C-alpha cells in the first residue's frame, strides 16, 4: 500500500517535473529598502536587479502564473506593487489604505490560478483627528489589470490574526490564522478547513505556528513547522514539547500533521522535497526530516539565522535565505554546503520571502 502511494505521487509530480524541465529555474527575492532580484540559481548569479518605486521593506512576493510579474508587498505592509520581471516596469500598484484616513497592514496576499485577481488580507485602523479606531480585517479583491491605482472590486470581512494566504489549484483560497480557513472568493463565505486554535487532536495542546513563508512553488504543497505539547505527558518530560509539520496539498486540498521531533529548537519555515519523502526546516539550524519514519535524519548548524528554506524543482538543492544578504545552498541528501549567492552591496533581506519560477 505504502509503495503504491509513493509510486502514485511520483507519477503525479513526475509530470510536473517534466513540464518544467525544459525551462530554466530562477529564484526571486527582495531586500530593503526597495530591491527585487532575479537570481539564476544554478549559475549562482544575480541576473537582474530591479528598484521598486516608493518602497521601504519588501516582504511577501507572489508571482503571476505565467511567471512574468512579481507582486511585491512593500511599504511596511501597506502596498502591493507589480513588477514586470523582464523590464522592471511597474505594471500594478494597490495602496491598501484606500479608504479615507485609514492605515492598513497587509498580512498576506495571493493570486488566482488564472492570474486575473489578487486576494489581499488587510487590517485597517481608522485615523481620527485625536484618536485611532482599530477596525475589522477584510479580504480585498483586486483585478491584476487594475493599473497603478488599483481599487478593490470586492471586499469581505475575515477573522483577525490571519498571516498567510494561499490559493489552491482549484482556485479555493486558504487562509492560515487561529484556524485554517477556506474562503469563497466570490461570496466571502469562509469555513474552518482545519482547526488549529480549536483543534481536537487528542492529548495535544493548542498549537503555535506563525507561518509567513510560501515554499510550495516546486512541490505543490504548503508546509510549516508547528509546535504543541503532549498534555498526557508529565510537565518535566522534555519529550512533551513536540514539533510537527503541518501541510496542505494545494492540489488535493488535504491537510496533514506529521509529528517528527520533540522541540529543542526554533524553526521558522519548512519545505517539502518534490518526492514528498523528505522535508527541510530552518532557523539557526537546517534540518533534514525523514517523512516516512518520521524523524529528524540530519541537523547542521548554520553560520547565521535564516528565515526561509526552499528547494530546487529537481529536488537536489536546498536553499536558505532571509535575514541578511546571502542565500546559502545545501545538497539535499547530505546537507553539505555547496554554494551561495550574495546580493550586490549586501542589502538587508529582512523578512522578504523566496519564490521559485521557471522560464
Amino acid at each position, binding site marked *: 500500500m505504502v509503495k503504491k502511494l509513493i509510486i502514485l505521487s511520483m507519477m503525479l509530480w513526475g509530470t510536473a517535473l517534466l513540464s518544467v524541465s525544459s525551462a530554466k529555474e530562477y529564484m526571486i527575492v527582495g531586500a530593503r529598502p526597495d530591491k527585487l532580484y532575479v537570481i539564476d540559481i544554478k549559475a549562482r548569479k544575480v541576473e537582474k536587479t530591479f528598484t521598486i518605486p516608493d518602497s521601504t521593506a519588501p516582504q511577501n512576493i507572489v508571482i503571476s502564473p505565467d511567471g512574468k510579474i512579481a507582486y511585491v508587498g512593500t511599504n*511596511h*505592509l501597506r502596498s502591493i506593487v507589480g513588477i514586470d520581471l523582464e523590464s522592471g516596469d511597474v505594471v500594478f500598484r494597490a495602496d491598501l489604505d484606500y479608504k479615507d484616513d485609514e*492605515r492598513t*497592514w497587509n*498580512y498576506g496576499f495571493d493570486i488566482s490560478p488564472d492570474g486575473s485577481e489578487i486576494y489581499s488580507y488587510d*487590517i485597517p*485602523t481608522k*485615523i481620527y*483627528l*485625536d*484618536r*485611532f*479606531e*482599530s477596525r475589522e480585517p477584510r479580504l480585498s479583491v483586486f483585478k491584476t489589470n487594475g493599473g497603478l491605482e488599483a481599487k478593490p472590486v470586492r471586499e469581505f470581512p475575515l477573522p*483577525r*490574526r490571519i*498571516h498567510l494566504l494561499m490559493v489552491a489549484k482549484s482556485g479555493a483560497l486558504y487562509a492560515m490564522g*487561529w484556524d485554517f480557513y477556506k474562503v469563497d472568493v466570490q461570496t466571502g463565505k469562509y469555513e474552518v478547513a482545519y482547526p488549529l*486554535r480549536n483543534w481536537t487532536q487528542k492529548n495535544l495542546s*493548542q498549537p*503555535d505556528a*506563525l507561518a509567513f513563508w510560501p515554499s510550495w512553488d516546486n512541490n505543490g504543497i504548503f508546509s510549516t513547522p508547528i509546535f504543541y505539547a503532549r498534555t498526557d505527558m508529565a510537565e518535566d518530560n522534555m519529550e512533551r514539547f513536540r514539533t510537527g509539520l503541518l501541510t496542505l496539498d494545494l492540489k488535493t486540498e488535504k491537510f496533514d500533521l506529521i509529528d517528527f521531533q520533540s522541540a529543542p529548537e526554533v524553526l521558522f519555515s519548512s519545505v517539502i522535497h518534490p518526492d514528498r519523502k523528505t522535508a527541510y526546516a530552518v532557523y*539557526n539550524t537546517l534540518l533534514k526530516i525523514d517523512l516516512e519514519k518520521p524523524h529528524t535524519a540530519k541537523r547542521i*548548524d*548554520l*553560520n*547565521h*539565522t535564516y528565515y526561509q528554506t526552499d528547494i530546487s524543482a529537481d529536488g537536489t538543492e536546498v536553499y536558505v535565505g532571509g535575514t541578511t544578504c546571502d542565500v546559502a545552498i545545501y545538497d539535499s541528501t547530505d546537507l553539505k554546503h555547496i554554494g551561495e549567492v550574495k546580493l550586490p552591496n549586501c542589502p538587508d533581506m529582512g523578512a522578504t520571502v523566496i519564490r521559485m519560477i521557471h522560464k
Partner: protein
Amino acid sequence: MKFIAPILSILLLTAGLSACSEAPKKSNVSEAEKVAGRTLVSDNCSGCHMEAEDGTFSRISFIRKTPEGWDMNIARMMIFHGLEIEPQDRRALVKYLADTQGLAPSETAAHRDILERKHNVIEQGVDPDLAAMCARCHTYARVALQRRDKAEWQNLVHMHLGQWASIEYQMLARERDWRADALGPVAEKLGKLYPLKTTQWTDWQKAEWKDMSGSWYMVGHVPGIGDMGGSMTVKAAGEGKYQTAFNMIFTDDITGAEGINLTGMGKSIVHTGYEWRGTATLNDVKYRQIWAASPDGNRMTGRFFKKDHPEDGMTITAWRNIPENNGIMSIVPAALKAGKATEIVISGLNLSGDISIPGAEVTVKQASDSRIVISALALAGATGPAKITVGNDSAPLAIYLQVDYLKVTPEYGISRVGGGGGPIPKVAAQFEAVGYTFGPDGKQGTDDDVNLGRLPVIWQVDNYSPAAAAMQDAKYAGHITENGTFIPAVAGPNPERKYGTNNAGDLKVIASYHNGTRTLTAEAHLIATVQRWNNPPIM
C-alpha cells in the same frame, strides 16, 4: 432626556462650588498658572484635540499621568502626529499637566523603581493576565502609572493596534484574541483599578504642597563602592524650581575607610507637589535625581544616578534639617565582629547625646550633628542582635563571631553589550556579596538571620546552563572585576561565535569568601543581553 443633562450639570457645578468653599486656602496651582497652562494646550494641541463648551480638551482632559508620562505623550504627538512645539513650551506643558492632572503620592508608590530608572527590576505582584497582555513590550509600571476610565483605556488599545502591526501576532498574544481581550475585559479591569477620579488625587490636590527650600541631609548606598552621607542645600528659584548644592562623603562599607568626596551644583523642579526632578554636576560628571517627597514635604527618597548611565547610581533617603527630623539615618557597617576593633560611621540629623553599644567599647573619633565616626570593640560574649544608641535614638547593629553564609545581590542581574563603534554604551551589572549569620535559631534563610553587610569576595562568572556552555557564553559575554562589576563585551555579531551570534550570554556570577580555612560561596543569575535601542523615561 434633554432636561436631564442641564440638571445634572447644575448639580455637578454646585457640588464643585461647595467643595471649593470648604477649602478657602490658597490653591497649589495659581490662577495665573492655570490660565498660562490652558493657553499652552489651546495653542499647541487644540488643532486636533477639540475644546468642548465645558472647557475640556478631547482626550487630554480625561487622563492623569506622571511628569514622565506626560512628556512621553507629547513626544509621541511630535513623532507620530507631527506636533511642533518649542522645548520651553513642552517643559511648561508637562509641569502644568502633571500639576493639574497628575498622580497622588500614594498612586505612584508601588511603581517608583521603574520611574527611578532602576534597570533590573522584576515587577512583583502583577496580575498574570494583565502582565501577559500589557507588560511584555514595556513595564507594567507604564500602565499602572496612568489614570483613566474604561473608554480612555480602550482608546489607548486602539492606538496600540494602529501603531504596531505585529501586536496581535507576537508570542503571548497570538494564542488569544488580543484585541477583543484588550478592548473588553482588560480595559474594564484597568478602568476599575486605575480610574480617572480617585479620592487619593482629590485629597492630594487639597493638601498643602510644600516649598522644598532649606537644608537637607542625605544618606545612600552605591553597590560595590560604599555608603554616602552628605548635604543638599536647596534655594527656591520660583515656579516650582530650585537651585541645589551638594557635598557628599563616601565610606567604604567593607573597611570603613573614608572614600571620595563628591561636590557640585544643580537645578531641580517639583511637579505635582512632590515629584522632585533634578540635574546636577558632581565632580564634573552629570547626574540626575528622580525623587519623591513625603506628603508632609520633610523627607525625600529616590535615586541619584549618572545621566549617561542610569544603572550606575544610588538610592537616597534625604531629611529636611528641622528639629522634628532628628536621629540616626544610617550606620556603616551595621555589623561588628566580636574581638575586632571596627570603625563605624553614623549619619543622621541633629545627632546629640551619648553614644553607646551595649556589650562593646566605643571610642568617638569624630563627631558633628550629622556625622559621627566611632571605633567599636565587642567582646565575644556579646554576639547577636545589638543596637547602637545616640542620645535618644538607636539603630540595630549585629555583633557576630563568624559569617555563616553569603548571598549575592541582586539575585538576578542584567547587563547589555554596547560600544564597538555603535552609538549605545555598554551597561554594566554590579553585584555585591552580603554576609549573614544564621541567627538564634541556627538555620539559614529564616527571619532571624542577621545581615552583616558587604564582604570582600573573589568574583567569577560561569555558564548558567548546558545551552550556555554549548555556546561558551562565559568566554564571550564579558568579564567581572575584583569589585563585582560585570563588564559586558562589545556589541555586534561575533564571527568567532557559533551562528556568528552577538556577545550575549546566560551566566552565573559566583562569589567566594575565604575566611581562615572556610570558603563560602554564593551565586546570582546574570543575563548578559543586547542593547536597548530606545530608553524611554518609563521603560
